């Protein structure tokens, strides 16, 4: 291997001196590419042209004779000449970047003879200064190692390309693009619903295709593991509802009707709705993240190539599990809410039997069944949105996060819209 020179110790920078060159005797040269100056290869005596520059991330040039090496870079405007000196590296260039560009305006020549060290970050500053002064401004006086780094950096430098004209969208174009994007998303969602429906029908015809073990696993994840959270929130919601309604109703002596009010609210509306919000936040996002990761890792593509329908293997078990689990979660939320309400009523002096009688008198079986039916539909839709978001994930690490966000936001919006539709439907049916 090529034998190289010892370098500067840690803390003194990465570069070091080329052995065998007398102090101050470094050849000074212009930067290649400048019309008035020779290329580095033509520079006078010194190290062989094919010799490596000083090892390290930066190259160091001998200080001019009679000058002490300085640690900091310097910028000086001397008439029409801009002089850069000292050590110009990634660690020091920040000190002089803006002053150098300011001083460069109007300069007719850039003098690097005082430069003691240069790395490619420092070279970027020299290039930027030359650009600020004017493209034809000669850069002179660089030692051979400095000129080599500058040459390499200059060859690598290209000003940023202007953005393609097609990307400069006006407001109308942007609105159009947004509309087309929404239409595409709606089409994809419709396609997904169609595929899911067809998969359901096919699974009903050929139940062997359905992997029961997967359904049970998802039932556990969606259902039993959410029981604790649902019970906790249910009790708290029951307590809050009871307190909030008891205070104004007591003014009219109507606090005896609080159990009816809370019972109807929970069974018809809040129980299914809150359980569905928990499902959207907890399970919809998990489905999207899991399937999104599989999509990003090309596992879904692998399934398709193996002739296995991802809808059957991945989506159907999740949809069935969520549809079955949601009524149970809603029922649990209802019961927990009633328990919370009962605690408040008992604490305010009502006997438990009276509370139970009031709930029994005020709530019909249809209220409970209507709520549980809604819950099943909520479960199906939330799981479907989560699965679709996952399967539609793009590429890269952001894709999974985007899919999870899309699943939660889409799920909750769909939930509220569906609930409104159910409210109108139940009203029309007289339930």
């Amino acid at each position, binding site marked *: 291997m090529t034998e190289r020179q010892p370098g500067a110790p*840690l803390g003194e920078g990465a570069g070091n001196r080329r052995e065998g060159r007398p102090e101050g005797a470094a050849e000074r040269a212009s930067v290649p590419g400048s019309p008035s100056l020779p290329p580095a290869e033509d520079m006078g005596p010194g190290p062989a042209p094919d010799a*490596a520059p000083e090892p390290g*991330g*930066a190259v160091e040039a001998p200080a001019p004779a009679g000058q002490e090496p300085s640690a900091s870079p310097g910028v000086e405007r001397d008439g029409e000449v801009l002089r850069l000196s000292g050590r110009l590296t990634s660690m020091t260039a920040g*000190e002089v970047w803006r002053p150098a560009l300011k001083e460069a305006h109007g300069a007719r020549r850039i003098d690097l003879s005082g430069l003691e060290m240069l790395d*490619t970050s420092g070279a*970027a500053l020299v290039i930027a200064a030359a650009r600020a002064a004017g493209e034809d401004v000669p850069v002179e006086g660089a030692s051979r190692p400095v000129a080599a780094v500058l040459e390499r950096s200059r060859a690598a430098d290209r*000003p*940023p390309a202007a*953005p393609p004209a097609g990307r400069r969208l006006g407001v109308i174009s942007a609105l159009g693009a947004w509309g087309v994007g929404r239409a595409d998303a709606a089409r994809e969602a419709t396609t997904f619903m169609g595929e899911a429906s067809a998969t359901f029908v096919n699974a009903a015809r050929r139940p062997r295709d359905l992997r029961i073990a997967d359904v049970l696993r998802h039932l556990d994840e969606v259902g039993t593991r959410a029981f604790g959270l649902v019970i906790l929130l249910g009790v708290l919601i029951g307590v809050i509802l009871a307190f909030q309604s008891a205070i104004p109703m007591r003014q009219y002596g109507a606090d005896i009707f609080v159990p009816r009010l809370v019972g109807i609210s929970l069974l018809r509306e809040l129980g299914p709705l809150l359980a569905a919000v928990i499902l959207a936040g907890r399970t919809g996002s998990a489905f999207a993240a899991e399937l999104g990761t599989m999509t990003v890792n090309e596992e879904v593509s692998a399934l398709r190539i193996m002739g296995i329908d991802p809808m059957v293997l991945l989506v159907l078990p999740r949809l069935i599990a969520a549809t079955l689990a949601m009524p149970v979660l809603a029922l649990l939320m209802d019961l927990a809410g009633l328990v919370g309400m009962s605690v408040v009523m008992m604490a305010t002096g009502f006997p438990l039997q009276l509370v139970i009688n009031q709930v029994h008198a005020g709530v019909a079986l249809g209220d409970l069944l209507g709520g549980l039916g809604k819950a099943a539909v909520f479960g199906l839709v939330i799981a479907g949105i989560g699965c679709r978001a996952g399967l539609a994930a793009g590429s890269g690490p952001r894709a999974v996060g985007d899919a999870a966000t899309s699943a939660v936001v889409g799920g909750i919006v769909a939930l509220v819209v569906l609930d409104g539709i159910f409210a109108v439907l139940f009203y029309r049916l007289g339930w």
Partner: protein
Amino acid sequence: MAAEAVIQARDVAMGFGSRVLFRGVNFDVARGEVFVILGGSGCGKSTLLKLMIGLYQPTAGQVTILGGDLATADGEARRNLLRQLGVMWQSGALFGSMTLLENVMLPLEAHTDLPREAREDVARVKLGLVGLSDAAGRLPAEISGGMAKRAGIARAMALDPPILFLDEPSAGLDPVTSAGLDELIKDLARDLGTTFVVVTHELQSILAIGDRCIMLDKEAQGMIAEGDPRHLRDDPPNDTVRRFFRRETR
């Protein structure tokens, strides 16, 4: 004359739990050389690299970089040492939410006081050095594997460190792209004088770029050869080295 050693490994041993990966590893990496760590799969090449950059602590022995030990250094000393090295990860490890330009600008933002426009100029030069000027505005998901590796090198070079560590730079690349990457490493070593420590088991790359190498072996649980890779190929010191360079199974 003997070149200064920028990395020194002395009696280094490493293992996970009761499993010994290697022991008694000794070598020096000279300033400015392309040093290759080679060996078969599972022999501990990447682990040795992670020991050198301080991600793992050896179970015995010591690795010093530019006189400091990253495994034990802390505070400003560790920060100073980390500024002296750059790492290109096997997967590229580019940040997916950032463009290539922003990826390269990140270390400059963390370690220098360059103004934003300066960081952008410097990052463009680094991308230009690896031939990615035209891809500066692209996201990692929008580029090929070879481009991701080159972008990884550009980011590793952001602070012009004197030592660059490359983990499997040729893995998964086609022969032409791989040869282009080898050329780039040689060019950067020659033009910028950077010291390279390269982990690879790609024979062509080893012979194309390596000034010197060490070979680890899973069964021997340590180093089984050291020297110029071309010499090891032509005059293998043992059967394992011979089989490796001649691609023989027995």
